[in-house]
């Protein structure tokens, strides 16, 4: 069958700048470890790629427990970016990851612009890293994180610095905790980003009423899961209309239809986060659903779906 054969199986491949993914399904940062943790449960080669847990220069211990609490259709977390540091990742994880034949996207963190750039530089030099996601939106650290992602000037500066430090595709991850996400998407585009990830978690607070303390040791946390999906789809739609670079939609995806909402809203690819915890093999189901949808709707490839929302007026 040739690619133009009308009976050919629809193509799920997508392009994010210079990065080609075999399908638009990525495992989100902080929900799949460094990939290896889930490799015995998910065939990583069936994924478009994985995004690593956030990496700083050095290893970090993260927050005290409790670090997670369930809320209605949501998960509140304050892990605090516990991690092994970029060097340990490059040395001891990356070589083993390569056998799995999936795109590896490093989630780059820093307390300063210089640290972001240095982590990006180290990640870019290592063989087998395919792209960098810049985490300017973690709500659970006291320095950096969300502070960068809720100020358009700082967003611009971090992205520009990483852009200079790396030739890999640079994908800033937007914070949803802002009045107008398009301002931040544009700042990223202007700073040379190849795409944006949309979105990180929403700042939330859950209280144990008996002790009158927050349920998380850190206090506030980041809300994820199906609860936030309508908000994340809205932001994806807004961002996609504001910039020309591709959008990776994230937030509460739990089924093929959820992924389709993001794609139709304007995303080119999507990430599955919280659902990895309870449904580690969810990708097969989503992929089958996407294929079925393309076939039923007579679409040759999934990129044709991106941004096809018929918005009223």
């Amino acid at each position, binding site marked *: 069958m040739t690619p133009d054969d009308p009976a050919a199986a629809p193509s799920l491949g997508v392009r994010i700048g210079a990065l080609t993914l075999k399908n638009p399904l990525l495992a989100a940062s902080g929900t799949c470890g460094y990939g290896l943790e889930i490799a015995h449960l998910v065939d990583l080669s069936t994924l478009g790629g994985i995004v690593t847990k956030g990496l700083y220069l050095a290893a970090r211990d*993260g927050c005290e*427990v409790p670090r*997670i609490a369930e809320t209605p259709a949501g*998960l509140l*977390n304050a892990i605090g970016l516990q991690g092994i540091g970029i060097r340990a990742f490059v040395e001891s994880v990356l070589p083993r990851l390569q056998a799995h034949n999936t795109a590896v996207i490093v989630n780059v963190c820093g307390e300063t612009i210089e640290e972001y750039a240095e982590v990006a530089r180290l990640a870019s030099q290592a063989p087998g890293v395919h792209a960098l996601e810049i985490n300017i939106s973690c709500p659970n650290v006291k320095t950096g994180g969300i502070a960068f992602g809720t100020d358009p000037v700082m967003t611009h500066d971090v992205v520009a610095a990483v852009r200079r430090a790396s030739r890999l595709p640079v994908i800033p991850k937007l914070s949803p905790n802002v009045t107008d996400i398009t301002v931040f998407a544009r700042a990223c585009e202007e700073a040379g980003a190849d795409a944006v990830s949309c979105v990180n978690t929403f700042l939330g607070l859950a209280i144990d009423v008996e002790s009158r303390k927050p349920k998380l040791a850190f206090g506030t946390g980041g809300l994820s899961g199906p609860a936030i999906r309508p908000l994340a789809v809205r932001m994806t739609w807004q961002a996609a209309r504001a910039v020309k670079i591709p959008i990776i939609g994230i937030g509460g995806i739990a089924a093929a239809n959820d992924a389709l909402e993001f794609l139709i809203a304007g995303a080119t690819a999507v990430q599955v986060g919280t659902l*990895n*915890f*309870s449904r580690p*093999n969810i990708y097969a189901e989503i992929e089958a659903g996407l294929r079925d949808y393309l076939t039923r709707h007579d679409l040759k490839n999934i990129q044709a779906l991106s941004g096809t929302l018929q918005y009223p007026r």
Partner: protein
Amino acid sequence: MTVASGGPPLDRLCALVKRESLGGAYALLTFEHEEVSRALAGQFAMIQPEISGDLLLRRPFSIMDVDSATGRFTIFLKAVGAGSKAVFDLRAGERARVLGPLGHGFSLPAASERVVMVGGGYGVAPFALFSRVLKPSPPFHLFYGGRSAAELPLVRELERRGIPLTLSTDDGTRGEKGRVTGPLVPALSVGEGTVRLYACGPEAMMHAVAGIAAEREIPCEVSLDPWMGCGIGTCLGCVVKIQEPGEGRPRNRPACTEGPVFDSRRVIWPQGGPA
């Protein structure tokens, strides 16, 4: 029933084949799951009803018994909150998502070691399975404590299995009155050979047992009970502070993959104190 060796975990949508109420919030639930039916004592599974409403995460439950011949395993469950209640409410024939076997179980004692197990609340569950692999000589013994007689729902089942038991309750309604460590301490000095301790239950109880072990230099394993989000090392919600021998300071380690069973000397307890 046959016990076999643990293998890699698998996620299965599997049927509840048997449900036995033990009164109150307690029940024994038997599922069909081949991989988990080969679990080792101390391993656990992450379980969620197929239809789980607005609860996203599964809950961890120790494997209380297995039968690799029929591919079944049993958990001893106490309904405490929404997640465990949802599993408790399953009826025979309904399905659940079960991922397991997970974690590292108890290490086997040396041939000469007398095994002393200390179980509190639902923490007694793994010792039912563990007892099946222990040889009667040297003898093993299980101390089982709870708040009251009603909180010792597994006694009959443990007796049926011929496990040597000492019971205690905080209010004295069954067995010795007081903490489970009451009858434990004198028992450690009676009998032949060296002792090996295993504890699973409320944190305060395990902390106390770890203290007793440290004082007497008895090897001791504890099965920690942090809140778990995934069971596979990805959420980092379940970390416990562990001081590894070669390392400068304690580190946050996921209990799901590096435990739940730990050498009690390595555990840095939130309460502080000896261990």
